[in-house]
């Protein structure tokens, strides 16, 4: 299959968390999270209590997919930044390379200017991490690696999940 799944190891995961934490702090945001373009949550930091991050991740990916579709119809490559303004909270969404989406939720404690500046820096840092992750995955795919958690899973294990 052309599009292999995403595999994230501890070291890269930590780098991503750290970058998000930095972003969240310096941009004075409420919540910052990173989502796979397919809708899976990769990492999330900030005041996440009471926020359904799984649903947000899926809707974010849907949102990016929909605007990507609109872009294509207009002959644009993509819209790399989306911004939604609410009464209290605002959402800033931007693409990280080909694979991920960075979402920042902020209120009056921050400003769009500050968010833009900090997001721009984090996007380039996160893009680097993702380039590395992708290279690692290519290497693993060509090497046949033995320590995947999946090698020992059986159909019965999955059956049991449902019972």
């Amino acid at each position: 299959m052309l599009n292999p799944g995403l595999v994230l190891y501890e070291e890269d995961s930590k780098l991503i968390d750290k970058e998000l934490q930095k972003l969240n702090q310096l941009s004075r945001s409420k919540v910052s999270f990173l989502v796979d373009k397919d809708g899976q949550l990769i990492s999330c930091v900030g005041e996440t209590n009471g926020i359904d991050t799984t649903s947000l991740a899926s809707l974010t990916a849907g949102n990016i997919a929909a605007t990507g579709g609109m872009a294509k119809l207009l002959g644009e490559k993509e819209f790399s930044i989306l911004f939604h303004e609410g009464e209290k909270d605002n959402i800033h969404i931007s693409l990280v390379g080909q694979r991920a989406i960075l979402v920042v939720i902020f209120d009056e404690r921050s400003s769009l200017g500050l968010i833009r500046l900090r997001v721009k820096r984090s996007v380039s840092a996160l893009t680097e991490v993702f380039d590395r992750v992708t290279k690692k995955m290519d290497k693993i795919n060509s090497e046949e690696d033995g320590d995947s958690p999946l090698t020992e899973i059986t159909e019965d294990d999955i059956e049991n999940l449902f019972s």
Partner: protein
Amino acid sequence: MSFINYSSREISCKIVYYGPGLCGKTTNLQHIYKKISPDSKGKMISLATETERTLFFDFLPLALGSVKGFKVRFHLYTVPGQIFYDASRKLILRGVDGVIFVADSQVERMEANLESVDNLVKNLKEHDFNLEDLPYVIQYNKRDLGNVVPLKEMEEALNPRKVPYFEAVAPKGEGVFETLKDVAKMVIMELKKKS
């Protein structure tokens, strides 16, 4: 596509319910949502019209438990079946790991079933997927109605590849979990093969 996170020790997969308008895709998810215990599911999100037709997608995240120390998550999506929502259907297929085709068993919907399978094949192609390479099962839904096509005929028309199939009455939950379980197994076994 699937996502394996060694840091949080989680595996996530995306399963999509496909099929013609009103065949019962959303009803499948509603039944699953109803039956799964609160700590194993997230919120079900339905982006629907005022008349409860799916507009963009339904989404239901399941976290049923752990296998070999890894939490296994299944993210279930339905597509909008109405023909003019094709652009949205295409988007939902992005990164799909397994497909459940829900067919409407009523005689007058056979044409729509066939059209929808063709549409599935076409839309997968746009993501560089072949239906043949993907975990795929078929559900013959609405078996409780009076005017249904005999099973054998449905098989001949819709299942040339002889993938696993299930008869269902989605509002009563008949066949719903059987279908999901089977594709879930296929998805995980496929992942295993690739790893």
